[in-house]
Protein backbone atom coordinates (compact mmCIF):
# COMPACT_ATOMS: atom_id res chain seq x y z
CA UNK A 1 0.00 0.00 0.00
CA UNK A 2 2.77 2.43 0.99
CA UNK A 3 4.56 1.22 -2.11
CA UNK A 4 1.56 2.18 -4.24
CA UNK A 5 1.50 5.76 -2.89
CA UNK A 6 5.25 6.12 -3.30
CA UNK A 7 5.03 5.16 -6.97
CA UNK A 8 1.81 6.75 -8.12
CA UNK A 9 1.17 9.48 -5.54
CA UNK A 10 -1.82 10.14 -3.30
CA UNK A 11 -4.30 11.13 -5.99
CA UNK A 12 -3.84 8.16 -8.32
CA UNK A 13 -3.63 5.64 -5.47
CA UNK A 14 -6.83 7.04 -4.02
CA UNK A 15 -8.56 6.73 -7.41
CA UNK A 16 -7.41 3.12 -7.83
CA UNK A 17 -8.50 2.13 -4.33
CA UNK A 18 -11.79 3.94 -4.92
CA UNK A 19 -12.52 2.08 -8.18
CA UNK A 20 -11.66 -1.26 -6.61
CA UNK A 21 -13.76 -0.50 -3.53
CA UNK A 22 -16.74 0.50 -5.67
CA UNK A 23 -16.52 -2.75 -7.59
CA UNK A 24 -16.05 -5.05 -4.64
CA UNK A 25 -18.45 -3.32 -2.24
CA UNK A 26 -21.26 -1.98 -4.41
CA UNK A 27 -21.26 -4.69 -7.07
CA UNK A 28 -20.07 -7.85 -5.30
CA UNK A 29 -20.11 -7.96 -1.50
CA UNK A 30 -23.10 -5.81 -0.56
CA UNK A 31 -25.48 -7.27 -3.17
CA UNK A 32 -24.62 -10.77 -1.99
CA UNK A 33 -25.06 -9.86 1.67
CA UNK A 34 -28.31 -8.19 0.66
CA UNK A 35 -29.39 -11.39 -1.06
CA UNK A 36 -28.71 -13.38 2.11
CA UNK A 37 -30.53 -10.85 4.29
CA UNK A 38 -33.43 -10.63 1.89
CA UNK A 39 -33.83 -14.40 1.80
CA UNK A 40 -34.60 -14.44 5.55
CA UNK A 41 -37.41 -11.89 5.32
CA UNK A 42 -41.07 -12.39 4.42
CA UNK A 43 -42.53 -10.93 1.26
CA UNK A 44 -44.50 -7.83 2.24
CA UNK A 45 -46.15 -4.94 0.43
CA UNK A 46 -44.19 -1.68 0.72
CA UNK A 47 -46.65 -0.23 3.26
CA UNK A 48 -45.88 -3.00 5.75
CA UNK A 49 -42.09 -2.84 5.48
CA UNK A 50 -40.70 -2.01 8.92
CA UNK A 51 -44.04 -3.01 10.45
CA UNK A 52 -44.69 -5.78 12.98
CA UNK A 53 -44.58 -8.51 10.32
CA UNK A 54 -41.15 -7.41 9.06
CA UNK A 55 -38.86 -9.72 11.03
CA UNK A 56 -36.38 -12.47 10.20
CA UNK A 57 -37.90 -15.81 9.37
CA UNK A 58 -36.95 -19.19 7.92
CA UNK A 59 -40.21 -19.27 5.99
CA UNK A 60 -38.59 -18.99 2.54
CA UNK A 61 -36.26 -21.91 3.14
CA UNK A 62 -39.10 -23.94 4.64
CA UNK A 63 -40.95 -23.39 1.36
CA UNK A 64 -38.02 -25.12 -0.34
CA UNK A 65 -38.00 -28.32 1.73
CA UNK A 66 -41.53 -28.27 3.11
CA UNK A 67 -43.67 -28.24 -0.05
CA UNK A 68 -45.90 -31.19 -0.85
CA UNK A 69 -43.70 -34.26 -0.68
CA UNK A 70 -43.29 -35.78 -4.10
CA UNK A 71 -41.99 -39.06 -2.73
CA UNK A 72 -40.25 -40.43 0.34
CA UNK A 73 -36.54 -41.21 0.36
CA UNK A 74 -35.55 -43.41 3.33
CA UNK A 75 -38.62 -42.11 5.13
CA UNK A 76 -37.69 -38.45 4.50
CA UNK A 77 -40.32 -36.50 2.55
CA UNK A 78 -38.79 -34.96 -0.57
CA UNK A 79 -40.52 -31.82 -1.78
CA UNK A 80 -40.84 -31.08 -5.49
CA UNK A 81 -38.37 -28.20 -5.31
CA UNK A 82 -35.80 -30.21 -3.36
CA UNK A 83 -36.18 -33.00 -5.91
CA UNK A 84 -35.58 -30.60 -8.79
CA UNK A 85 -32.57 -29.15 -6.96
CA UNK A 86 -31.04 -32.62 -6.53
CA UNK A 87 -31.75 -33.54 -10.16
CA UNK A 88 -30.08 -30.28 -11.28
CA UNK A 89 -26.98 -31.17 -9.24
CA UNK A 90 -26.90 -34.74 -10.58
CA UNK A 91 -27.38 -33.83 -14.23
CA UNK A 92 -24.95 -30.89 -14.05
CA UNK A 93 -22.37 -33.36 -12.74
CA UNK A 94 -23.18 -35.73 -15.60
CA UNK A 95 -22.69 -32.87 -18.08
CA UNK A 96 -19.36 -31.99 -16.43
CA UNK A 97 -18.09 -35.59 -16.67
CA UNK A 98 -19.17 -35.90 -20.33
CA UNK A 99 -17.42 -32.62 -21.19
CA UNK A 100 -14.25 -33.74 -19.41
CA UNK A 101 -14.23 -37.09 -21.22
CA UNK A 102 -14.83 -35.45 -24.59
CA UNK A 103 -12.31 -32.63 -24.19
CA UNK A 104 -9.31 -34.37 -22.64
CA UNK A 105 -8.27 -36.32 -25.78
CA UNK A 106 -8.81 -33.30 -28.01
CA UNK A 107 -6.92 -30.97 -25.66
CA UNK A 108 -4.02 -33.44 -25.60
CA UNK A 109 -4.08 -33.75 -29.39
CA UNK A 110 -4.10 -29.98 -29.87
CA UNK A 111 -1.37 -29.38 -27.30
CA UNK A 112 1.07 -32.21 -28.00
CA UNK A 113 0.32 -34.18 -31.18
CA UNK A 114 -0.66 -31.84 -33.97
CA UNK A 115 1.60 -29.21 -35.56
CA UNK A 116 1.13 -25.78 -33.93
CA UNK A 117 -0.02 -24.22 -37.20
CA UNK A 118 -2.76 -26.83 -37.71
CA UNK A 119 -3.72 -26.43 -34.05
CA UNK A 120 -4.30 -22.71 -34.70
CA UNK A 121 -6.60 -23.52 -37.64
CA UNK A 122 -8.51 -26.09 -35.57
CA UNK A 123 -8.90 -23.56 -32.76
CA UNK A 124 -10.33 -21.04 -35.18
CA UNK A 125 -12.94 -23.56 -36.33
CA UNK A 126 -13.78 -24.44 -32.72
CA UNK A 127 -14.16 -20.77 -31.80
CA UNK A 128 -16.92 -20.18 -34.36
CA UNK A 129 -19.65 -21.73 -32.18
CA UNK A 130 -18.34 -19.77 -29.20
CA UNK A 131 -18.90 -16.44 -30.97
CA UNK A 132 -22.42 -17.44 -31.90
CA UNK A 133 -24.33 -16.80 -28.69
CA UNK A 134 -25.38 -19.32 -26.05
CA UNK A 135 -29.05 -19.05 -27.00
CA UNK A 136 -28.48 -19.72 -30.67
CA UNK A 137 -26.28 -22.69 -29.82
CA UNK A 138 -29.12 -24.33 -27.88
CA UNK A 139 -31.67 -23.23 -30.46
CA UNK A 140 -29.59 -25.02 -33.10
CA UNK A 141 -30.02 -28.26 -31.17
CA UNK A 142 -33.71 -27.63 -30.78
CA UNK A 143 -33.97 -27.77 -34.57
CA UNK A 144 -31.63 -30.74 -34.92
CA UNK A 145 -33.46 -32.78 -32.29
CA UNK A 146 -37.03 -31.86 -33.17
CA UNK A 147 -39.25 -34.77 -34.15
CA UNK A 148 -39.48 -33.65 -37.77
CA UNK A 149 -35.84 -32.56 -37.72
CA UNK A 150 -32.80 -33.61 -39.74
CA UNK A 151 -31.62 -36.25 -37.26
CA UNK A 152 -34.86 -38.21 -37.56
CA UNK A 153 -34.81 -37.64 -41.31
CA UNK A 154 -31.48 -39.49 -41.42
CA UNK A 155 -32.92 -42.29 -39.27
CA UNK A 156 -35.89 -42.61 -41.61
CA UNK A 157 -33.54 -42.50 -44.57
CA UNK A 158 -31.66 -45.58 -43.37
CA UNK A 159 -34.93 -47.34 -42.60
CA UNK A 160 -35.09 -46.87 -38.82
CA UNK A 161 -38.08 -45.47 -37.00
CA UNK A 162 -37.70 -41.90 -35.73
CA UNK A 163 -36.97 -41.26 -32.07
CA UNK A 164 -38.45 -38.58 -29.82
CA UNK A 165 -35.13 -37.06 -28.72
CA UNK A 166 -36.29 -34.35 -26.35
CA UNK A 167 -37.63 -36.53 -23.54
CA UNK A 168 -36.58 -36.54 -19.90
CA UNK A 169 -33.25 -34.82 -19.48
CA UNK A 170 -31.83 -35.89 -22.88
CA UNK A 171 -32.38 -32.56 -24.60
CA UNK A 172 -31.02 -30.56 -21.67
CA UNK A 173 -27.91 -32.73 -21.34
CA UNK A 174 -27.09 -32.57 -25.05
CA UNK A 175 -27.73 -28.81 -25.12
CA UNK A 176 -25.62 -28.12 -22.03
CA UNK A 177 -22.73 -30.28 -23.26
CA UNK A 178 -22.73 -28.54 -26.63
CA UNK A 179 -23.10 -25.05 -25.19
CA UNK A 180 -20.40 -25.27 -22.49
CA UNK A 181 -17.99 -27.85 -23.98
CA UNK A 182 -15.39 -25.26 -24.96
CA UNK A 183 -15.17 -23.93 -21.39
CA UNK A 184 -13.66 -27.34 -20.58
CA UNK A 185 -11.38 -27.55 -23.63
CA UNK A 186 -9.41 -24.31 -23.25
CA UNK A 187 -8.24 -24.62 -19.62
CA UNK A 188 -7.15 -28.24 -20.13
CA UNK A 189 -5.39 -27.31 -23.36
CA UNK A 190 -3.52 -24.50 -21.57
CA UNK A 191 -2.48 -26.83 -18.77
CA UNK A 192 -1.23 -29.60 -21.10
CA UNK A 193 0.63 -27.09 -23.32
CA UNK A 194 2.76 -26.09 -20.34
CA UNK A 195 3.94 -29.69 -19.87
CA UNK A 196 7.44 -30.38 -21.17
CA UNK A 197 7.12 -32.90 -24.02
CA UNK A 198 10.35 -34.53 -22.87
CA UNK A 199 8.54 -35.84 -19.82
CA UNK A 200 6.06 -37.69 -22.04
CA UNK A 201 8.89 -39.09 -24.14
CA UNK A 202 10.83 -40.14 -21.07
CA UNK A 203 7.82 -41.99 -19.76
CA UNK A 204 7.38 -43.79 -23.10
CA UNK A 205 11.09 -44.59 -23.36
CA UNK A 206 10.93 -46.17 -19.93
CA UNK A 207 8.28 -48.50 -21.32
CA UNK A 208 5.10 -47.04 -19.85
CA UNK A 209 1.99 -47.96 -21.80
CA UNK A 210 -0.07 -45.09 -23.18
CA UNK A 211 -2.64 -45.10 -20.37
CA UNK A 212 0.05 -45.01 -17.70
CA UNK A 213 1.81 -42.07 -19.33
CA UNK A 214 -1.46 -40.18 -19.17
CA UNK A 215 -2.40 -41.35 -15.68
CA UNK A 216 0.98 -40.64 -14.09
CA UNK A 217 2.40 -37.77 -16.17
CA UNK A 218 -0.11 -35.81 -18.23
CA UNK A 219 -3.17 -35.86 -15.98
CA UNK A 220 -1.35 -34.88 -12.77
CA UNK A 221 0.22 -31.97 -14.63
CA UNK A 222 -3.11 -30.82 -16.09
CA UNK A 223 -5.01 -30.92 -12.77
CA UNK A 224 -5.37 -27.11 -12.52
CA UNK A 225 -6.88 -27.02 -16.03
CA UNK A 226 -9.20 -29.93 -15.27
CA UNK A 227 -10.29 -28.24 -12.03
CA UNK A 228 -10.91 -24.96 -13.81
CA UNK A 229 -12.88 -26.60 -16.62
CA UNK A 230 -15.00 -28.68 -14.23
CA UNK A 231 -15.84 -25.68 -12.05
CA UNK A 232 -16.82 -23.53 -15.02
CA UNK A 233 -18.90 -26.20 -16.76
CA UNK A 234 -20.70 -27.21 -13.57
CA UNK A 235 -21.44 -23.62 -12.60
CA UNK A 236 -22.65 -22.66 -16.08
CA UNK A 237 -24.79 -25.80 -16.35
CA UNK A 238 -26.42 -25.59 -12.93
CA UNK A 239 -26.99 -21.87 -13.45
CA UNK A 240 -28.12 -22.12 -17.05
CA UNK A 241 -31.44 -20.43 -17.70
CA UNK A 242 -31.71 -20.56 -21.46
CA UNK A 243 -30.75 -24.15 -22.32
CA UNK A 244 -33.40 -25.78 -20.08
CA UNK A 245 -36.03 -23.31 -21.22
CA UNK A 246 -35.45 -24.30 -24.85
CA UNK A 247 -34.61 -28.00 -24.61
CA UNK A 248 -36.44 -29.22 -21.51
CA UNK A 249 -39.32 -31.66 -21.86
CA UNK A 250 -42.33 -31.47 -19.54
CA UNK A 251 -40.71 -34.06 -17.29
CA UNK A 252 -37.41 -32.22 -16.81
CA UNK A 253 -37.43 -29.00 -14.87
CA UNK A 254 -34.24 -27.17 -13.94
CA UNK A 255 -33.68 -25.33 -10.66
CA UNK A 256 -33.19 -21.99 -12.41
CA UNK A 257 -36.68 -22.35 -13.89
CA UNK A 258 -38.11 -22.52 -10.36
CA UNK A 259 -36.14 -19.38 -9.44
CA UNK A 260 -37.52 -17.62 -12.51
CA UNK A 261 -41.02 -18.67 -11.55
CA UNK A 262 -40.69 -17.01 -8.12
CA UNK A 263 -39.14 -13.87 -9.57
CA UNK A 264 -41.49 -13.29 -12.51
CA UNK A 265 -44.69 -15.25 -12.06
CA UNK A 266 -44.93 -15.58 -8.29
CA UNK A 267 -43.56 -12.04 -7.77
CA UNK A 268 -42.21 -13.27 -4.43
CA UNK A 269 -38.67 -11.92 -4.62
CA UNK A 270 -37.82 -13.08 -1.11
CA UNK A 271 -38.36 -16.75 -1.90
CA UNK A 272 -36.52 -16.12 -5.17
CA UNK A 273 -33.61 -14.70 -3.16
CA UNK A 274 -33.57 -17.77 -0.91
CA UNK A 275 -33.50 -20.10 -3.92
CA UNK A 276 -30.80 -18.03 -5.66
CA UNK A 277 -28.77 -18.17 -2.46
CA UNK A 278 -29.06 -21.97 -2.43
CA UNK A 279 -27.70 -22.03 -5.98
CA UNK A 280 -24.79 -19.84 -4.88
CA UNK A 281 -24.07 -22.15 -1.92
CA UNK A 282 -24.17 -25.15 -4.26
CA UNK A 283 -21.56 -23.62 -6.58
CA UNK A 284 -19.34 -22.56 -3.67
CA UNK A 285 -19.48 -26.10 -2.26
CA UNK A 286 -18.65 -27.53 -5.68
CA UNK A 287 -15.62 -25.23 -6.04
CA UNK A 288 -14.29 -26.23 -2.61
CA UNK A 289 -14.86 -29.95 -3.26
CA UNK A 290 -12.99 -29.74 -6.58
CA UNK A 291 -10.15 -27.80 -4.94
CA UNK A 292 -9.92 -30.40 -2.16
CA UNK A 293 -10.16 -33.47 -4.41
CA UNK A 294 -7.70 -32.26 -7.04
CA UNK A 295 -5.55 -30.46 -4.48
CA UNK A 296 -5.34 -27.15 -6.34
CA UNK A 297 -5.56 -23.53 -5.17
CA UNK A 298 -8.04 -20.89 -6.22
CA UNK A 299 -5.23 -19.08 -8.05
CA UNK A 300 -4.84 -22.16 -10.30
CA UNK A 301 -8.56 -22.35 -11.08
CA UNK A 302 -9.19 -18.72 -11.96
CA UNK A 303 -6.46 -17.72 -14.35
Amino acid at each position, binding site marked *: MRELIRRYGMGLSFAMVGLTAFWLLALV*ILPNLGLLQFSFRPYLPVSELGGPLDHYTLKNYITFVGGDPEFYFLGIPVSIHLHIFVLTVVYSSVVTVICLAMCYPLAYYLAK*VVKPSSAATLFM*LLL*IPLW*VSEILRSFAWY*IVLSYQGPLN*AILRGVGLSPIRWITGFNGVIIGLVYTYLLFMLFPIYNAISSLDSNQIEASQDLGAPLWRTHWRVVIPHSKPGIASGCVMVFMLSA*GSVIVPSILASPGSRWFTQIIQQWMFEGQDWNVGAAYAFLLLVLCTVFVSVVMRVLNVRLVDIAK
Partner: protein
Amino acid sequence: MRTHSAGRTIIQIYVALFLFFMLAPLIVMGGAALNDTRFPSVYPWVGLTDRWFIDLWNDPRMWTSITNTVLVAFSVVVISVPIGTASAILINSLQSRARSFLYGVMVAPILTPGAVIGISTLLFWNHLGTPFGLQEEFPFKAGLHLSALGQVSFIAAYAMLLVLARLQSFDPGLEEAALDLGATHAQVMRRILLPHLYPAIGASALIAFFQSVENFNITLFTRGSSDTLTVYVGSKVRTGITPTINALALCLITLTVIGAIAYEITRRRAAAREAADAIALEKAEAAESEALQTASA
Protein backbone atom coordinates in the same frame (compact mmCIF):
# COMPACT_ATOMS: atom_id res chain seq x y z
CA MET B 1 7.02 -38.25 -30.57
CA ARG B 2 6.22 -41.89 -31.07
CA THR B 3 2.56 -42.43 -31.61
CA HIS B 4 1.17 -45.60 -33.11
CA SER B 5 -0.13 -44.88 -36.57
CA ALA B 6 -3.35 -46.73 -35.68
CA GLY B 7 -3.71 -44.56 -32.58
CA ARG B 8 -3.06 -41.51 -34.71
CA THR B 9 -5.81 -42.47 -37.14
CA ILE B 10 -8.25 -43.03 -34.29
CA ILE B 11 -7.57 -39.63 -32.75
CA GLN B 12 -7.82 -37.94 -36.14
CA ILE B 13 -11.22 -39.52 -36.71
CA TYR B 14 -12.17 -38.37 -33.21
CA VAL B 15 -11.11 -34.79 -33.95
CA ALA B 16 -13.09 -34.83 -37.20
CA LEU B 17 -16.19 -36.10 -35.35
CA PHE B 18 -15.70 -33.46 -32.68
CA LEU B 19 -15.57 -30.71 -35.31
CA PHE B 20 -18.64 -32.15 -37.00
CA PHE B 21 -20.45 -32.15 -33.65
CA MET B 22 -19.51 -28.52 -33.06
CA LEU B 23 -20.26 -27.15 -36.54
CA ALA B 24 -23.07 -29.26 -38.05
CA PRO B 25 -25.82 -27.84 -35.77
CA LEU B 26 -24.84 -24.33 -36.85
CA ILE B 27 -25.08 -25.32 -40.51
CA VAL B 28 -28.52 -26.81 -39.92
CA MET B 29 -29.65 -23.68 -38.08
CA GLY B 30 -28.30 -21.38 -40.78
CA GLY B 31 -29.73 -23.49 -43.57
CA ALA B 32 -33.20 -23.33 -42.04
CA ALA B 33 -33.15 -19.56 -42.54
CA LEU B 34 -33.28 -20.10 -46.30
CA ASN B 35 -36.08 -22.65 -46.31
CA ASP B 36 -39.58 -21.51 -47.12
CA THR B 37 -41.45 -23.13 -44.19
CA ARG B 38 -43.09 -21.62 -41.10
CA PHE B 39 -41.31 -24.02 -38.76
CA PRO B 40 -37.53 -23.58 -39.01
CA SER B 41 -36.21 -26.75 -40.59
CA VAL B 42 -33.93 -27.89 -43.40
CA TYR B 43 -35.93 -31.04 -44.07
CA PRO B 44 -38.17 -31.31 -45.99
CA TRP B 45 -36.70 -28.64 -48.25
CA VAL B 46 -39.61 -26.54 -49.55
CA GLY B 47 -37.81 -23.87 -51.48
CA LEU B 48 -35.27 -21.10 -51.31
CA THR B 49 -36.57 -17.86 -49.81
CA ASP B 50 -35.35 -14.54 -48.48
CA ARG B 51 -38.60 -13.66 -46.71
CA TRP B 52 -37.24 -14.42 -43.21
CA PHE B 53 -34.47 -11.88 -43.75
CA ILE B 54 -37.01 -9.28 -44.89
CA ASP B 55 -39.24 -10.04 -41.87
CA LEU B 56 -36.23 -9.68 -39.61
CA TRP B 57 -35.17 -6.40 -41.20
CA ASN B 58 -38.69 -5.00 -40.76
CA ASP B 59 -38.94 -5.92 -37.08
CA PRO B 60 -38.51 -2.65 -35.11
CA ARG B 61 -38.11 -4.60 -31.84
CA MET B 62 -34.97 -6.21 -33.23
CA TRP B 63 -33.43 -2.81 -34.05
CA THR B 64 -34.25 -1.41 -30.59
CA SER B 65 -32.72 -4.44 -28.97
CA ILE B 66 -29.55 -4.12 -31.05
CA THR B 67 -29.21 -0.45 -30.05
CA ASN B 68 -29.72 -1.38 -26.39
CA THR B 69 -27.18 -4.19 -26.60
CA VAL B 70 -24.52 -1.90 -28.04
CA LEU B 71 -25.26 0.82 -25.44
CA VAL B 72 -24.98 -1.64 -22.56
CA ALA B 73 -21.84 -3.21 -24.01
CA PHE B 74 -20.14 0.19 -24.36
CA SER B 75 -21.02 1.18 -20.80
CA VAL B 76 -19.71 -2.15 -19.55
CA VAL B 77 -16.40 -1.60 -21.38
CA VAL B 78 -16.10 1.96 -20.08
CA ILE B 79 -16.75 0.94 -16.46
CA SER B 80 -15.14 -2.48 -16.21
CA VAL B 81 -11.81 -1.84 -17.96
CA PRO B 82 -10.68 1.00 -15.62
CA ILE B 83 -11.90 -0.99 -12.61
CA GLY B 84 -10.08 -4.11 -13.77
CA THR B 85 -6.87 -2.21 -14.50
CA ALA B 86 -6.93 -0.30 -11.19
CA SER B 87 -7.63 -3.39 -9.11
CA ALA B 88 -4.92 -5.39 -10.89
CA ILE B 89 -2.32 -2.69 -10.12
CA LEU B 90 -3.62 -2.50 -6.55
CA ILE B 91 -3.54 -6.25 -5.90
CA ASN B 92 -0.14 -6.56 -7.51
CA SER B 93 1.29 -4.13 -4.93
CA LEU B 94 -0.08 -6.09 -1.98
CA GLN B 95 1.66 -8.81 0.01
CA SER B 96 0.65 -12.44 0.69
CA ARG B 97 -2.30 -12.45 3.17
CA ALA B 98 -4.31 -9.45 2.02
CA ARG B 99 -3.48 -10.35 -1.55
CA SER B 100 -4.95 -13.85 -1.52
CA PHE B 101 -8.05 -12.69 0.36
CA LEU B 102 -8.69 -9.86 -2.09
CA TYR B 103 -7.95 -12.17 -5.02
CA GLY B 104 -10.60 -14.58 -3.75
CA VAL B 105 -13.21 -11.82 -3.53
CA MET B 106 -12.28 -10.53 -6.99
CA VAL B 107 -12.55 -13.84 -8.85
CA ALA B 108 -15.69 -14.95 -6.96
CA PRO B 109 -18.06 -13.27 -9.47
CA ILE B 110 -16.59 -15.38 -12.29
CA LEU B 111 -17.56 -18.51 -10.38
CA THR B 112 -21.05 -17.21 -9.50
CA PRO B 113 -24.03 -18.19 -11.67
CA GLY B 114 -25.39 -15.29 -13.71
CA ALA B 115 -28.87 -15.74 -12.28
CA VAL B 116 -27.51 -15.14 -8.77
CA ILE B 117 -25.64 -11.99 -9.83
CA GLY B 118 -28.73 -10.72 -11.63
CA ILE B 119 -31.09 -11.29 -8.72
CA SER B 120 -28.71 -9.89 -6.10
CA THR B 121 -28.05 -6.76 -8.19
CA LEU B 122 -31.76 -6.19 -8.74
CA LEU B 123 -32.67 -6.67 -5.09
CA PHE B 124 -29.77 -4.61 -3.77
CA TRP B 125 -30.48 -1.48 -5.83
CA ASN B 126 -34.19 -1.84 -5.41
CA HIS B 127 -33.75 -2.10 -1.65
CA LEU B 128 -31.47 0.93 -1.60
CA GLY B 129 -34.34 3.07 -2.89
CA THR B 130 -37.05 1.62 -0.65
CA PRO B 131 -36.44 3.78 2.47
CA PHE B 132 -36.99 6.88 0.35
CA GLY B 133 -39.97 5.43 -1.49
CA LEU B 134 -37.91 5.55 -4.70
CA GLN B 135 -37.86 1.84 -5.54
CA GLU B 136 -39.89 2.58 -8.68
CA GLU B 137 -37.69 5.51 -9.75
CA PHE B 138 -34.75 5.63 -12.15
CA PRO B 139 -31.54 4.51 -10.49
CA PHE B 140 -33.25 1.98 -8.22
CA LYS B 141 -35.76 0.49 -10.62
CA ALA B 142 -34.91 -2.48 -12.83
CA GLY B 143 -33.52 -1.36 -16.17
CA LEU B 144 -30.58 -1.65 -18.52
CA HIS B 145 -28.35 0.42 -16.18
CA LEU B 146 -28.67 -2.38 -13.61
CA SER B 147 -27.90 -4.93 -16.33
CA ALA B 148 -24.70 -3.03 -17.08
CA LEU B 149 -23.71 -2.86 -13.39
CA GLY B 150 -24.47 -6.56 -12.89
CA GLN B 151 -22.36 -7.47 -15.92
CA VAL B 152 -19.50 -5.26 -14.73
CA SER B 153 -19.33 -7.24 -11.48
CA PHE B 154 -17.97 -10.33 -13.28
CA ILE B 155 -16.51 -8.78 -16.44
CA ALA B 156 -14.24 -6.52 -14.35
CA ALA B 157 -12.79 -9.74 -12.91
CA TYR B 158 -11.77 -10.90 -16.41
CA ALA B 159 -10.16 -7.51 -17.06
CA MET B 160 -8.35 -7.74 -13.71
CA LEU B 161 -6.97 -11.22 -14.54
CA LEU B 162 -5.75 -10.13 -17.99
CA VAL B 163 -4.01 -7.00 -16.70
CA LEU B 164 -2.57 -8.87 -13.70
CA ALA B 165 -1.05 -11.47 -16.04
CA ARG B 166 0.54 -8.69 -18.10
CA LEU B 167 1.88 -6.99 -14.96
CA GLN B 168 4.00 -10.08 -14.23
CA SER B 169 6.27 -9.16 -17.13
CA PHE B 170 6.61 -5.53 -16.02
CA ASP B 171 9.94 -4.33 -14.67
CA PRO B 172 9.24 -2.02 -11.68
CA GLY B 173 12.83 -0.77 -12.03
CA LEU B 174 11.63 1.36 -14.94
CA GLU B 175 9.32 3.24 -12.61
CA GLU B 176 12.12 3.69 -10.08
CA ALA B 177 14.34 5.11 -12.78
CA ALA B 178 11.64 7.50 -13.97
CA LEU B 179 10.96 8.70 -10.42
CA ASP B 180 14.69 9.17 -9.78
CA LEU B 181 14.95 11.22 -12.93
CA GLY B 182 12.23 13.50 -11.62
CA ALA B 183 9.11 12.24 -13.36
CA THR B 184 5.82 13.06 -11.67
CA HIS B 185 3.50 10.28 -10.47
CA ALA B 186 1.09 10.97 -13.32
CA GLN B 187 3.95 10.69 -15.83
CA VAL B 188 5.08 7.38 -14.35
CA MET B 189 1.56 6.05 -14.79
CA ARG B 190 0.93 7.47 -18.24
CA ARG B 191 4.35 7.06 -19.85
CA ILE B 192 5.75 3.93 -18.19
CA LEU B 193 3.10 1.66 -16.69
CA LEU B 194 0.08 2.12 -18.95
CA PRO B 195 1.97 1.69 -22.27
CA HIS B 196 3.21 -1.66 -20.99
CA LEU B 197 -0.37 -2.64 -20.10
CA TYR B 198 -2.02 -1.47 -23.35
CA PRO B 199 -2.17 -4.92 -25.01
CA ALA B 200 -3.91 -6.36 -21.94
CA ILE B 201 -6.20 -3.35 -21.67
CA GLY B 202 -7.16 -3.68 -25.34
CA ALA B 203 -7.81 -7.41 -24.94
CA SER B 204 -9.98 -6.81 -21.87
CA ALA B 205 -12.00 -4.16 -23.69
CA LEU B 206 -12.66 -6.64 -26.49
CA ILE B 207 -13.57 -9.45 -24.12
CA ALA B 208 -15.75 -7.13 -22.04
CA PHE B 209 -17.65 -6.04 -25.14
CA PHE B 210 -18.37 -9.55 -26.35
CA GLN B 211 -19.12 -10.93 -22.89
CA SER B 212 -21.67 -8.17 -22.48
CA VAL B 213 -23.26 -8.78 -25.88
CA GLU B 214 -23.50 -12.51 -25.10
CA ASN B 215 -24.89 -12.09 -21.61
CA PHE B 216 -28.34 -13.46 -20.99
CA ASN B 217 -28.75 -14.51 -17.36
CA ILE B 218 -27.85 -11.25 -15.60
CA THR B 219 -29.72 -9.17 -18.17
CA LEU B 220 -32.87 -11.28 -17.89
CA PHE B 221 -33.32 -10.52 -14.20
CA THR B 222 -32.24 -6.86 -14.22
CA ARG B 223 -33.54 -5.47 -17.52
CA GLY B 224 -37.01 -4.38 -16.37
CA SER B 225 -38.99 -4.08 -19.59
CA SER B 226 -36.15 -3.24 -22.01
CA ASP B 227 -34.83 -5.73 -24.54
CA THR B 228 -31.31 -6.63 -25.45
CA LEU B 229 -30.48 -8.82 -28.42
CA THR B 230 -30.11 -12.00 -26.35
CA VAL B 231 -33.35 -11.34 -24.46
CA TYR B 232 -35.12 -10.62 -27.76
CA VAL B 233 -33.87 -13.87 -29.26
CA GLY B 234 -34.73 -15.72 -26.03
CA SER B 235 -38.30 -14.47 -25.97
CA LYS B 236 -38.79 -15.18 -29.68
CA VAL B 237 -37.50 -18.71 -29.27
CA ARG B 238 -39.75 -19.34 -26.29
CA THR B 239 -42.99 -17.77 -27.42
CA GLY B 240 -43.18 -18.72 -31.06
CA ILE B 241 -40.46 -20.46 -32.96
CA THR B 242 -39.86 -18.47 -36.13
CA PRO B 243 -37.33 -18.70 -38.94
CA THR B 244 -36.48 -14.99 -38.53
CA ILE B 245 -34.28 -16.09 -35.63
CA ASN B 246 -32.51 -18.44 -38.03
CA ALA B 247 -32.03 -15.51 -40.38
CA LEU B 248 -30.43 -13.55 -37.53
CA ALA B 249 -28.31 -16.60 -36.64
CA LEU B 250 -27.14 -16.96 -40.24
CA CYS B 251 -26.11 -13.28 -40.29
CA LEU B 252 -24.13 -13.74 -37.06
CA ILE B 253 -22.50 -16.95 -38.28
CA THR B 254 -21.54 -15.31 -41.57
CA LEU B 255 -19.97 -12.36 -39.72
CA THR B 256 -18.07 -14.76 -37.46
CA VAL B 257 -16.81 -16.85 -40.36
CA ILE B 258 -15.67 -13.75 -42.25
CA GLY B 259 -13.85 -12.56 -39.12
CA ALA B 260 -12.29 -15.98 -38.63
CA ILE B 261 -11.11 -16.18 -42.25
CA ALA B 262 -9.65 -12.68 -42.07
CA TYR B 263 -7.84 -13.62 -38.88
CA GLU B 264 -6.57 -16.87 -40.38
CA ILE B 265 -5.21 -15.07 -43.48
CA THR B 266 -3.35 -12.48 -41.38
CA ARG B 267 -2.00 -15.25 -39.16
CA ARG B 268 -0.76 -17.30 -42.13
CA ARG B 269 0.83 -14.25 -43.71
CA ALA B 270 2.58 -13.41 -40.45
CA ALA B 271 3.75 -17.02 -40.11
CA ALA B 272 5.01 -17.05 -43.70
CA ARG B 273 6.85 -13.78 -43.14
CA GLU B 274 8.43 -15.17 -39.98
CA ALA B 275 9.46 -18.34 -41.79
CA ALA B 276 10.97 -16.25 -44.62
CA ASP B 277 12.83 -14.14 -42.05
CA ALA B 278 14.12 -17.29 -40.36
CA ILE B 279 15.39 -18.67 -43.68
CA ALA B 280 17.03 -15.35 -44.51
CA LEU B 281 18.65 -15.32 -41.07
CA GLU B 282 19.90 -18.87 -41.54
CA LYS B 283 21.35 -18.00 -44.93
CA ALA B 284 23.04 -14.93 -43.50
CA GLU B 285 24.49 -17.00 -40.67
CA ALA B 286 25.70 -19.68 -43.06
CA ALA B 287 27.33 -17.00 -45.23
CA GLU B 288 28.93 -15.47 -42.16
CA SER B 289 30.37 -18.75 -40.93
CA GLU B 290 31.61 -19.49 -44.43
CA ALA B 291 33.27 -16.11 -44.55
CA LEU B 292 34.86 -16.79 -41.16
CA GLN B 293 36.11 -20.15 -42.33
CA THR B 294 37.64 -18.62 -45.44
CA ALA B 295 39.19 -15.91 -43.33
CA SER B 296 40.74 -18.38 -40.85
CA ALA B 297 41.99 -20.54 -43.73
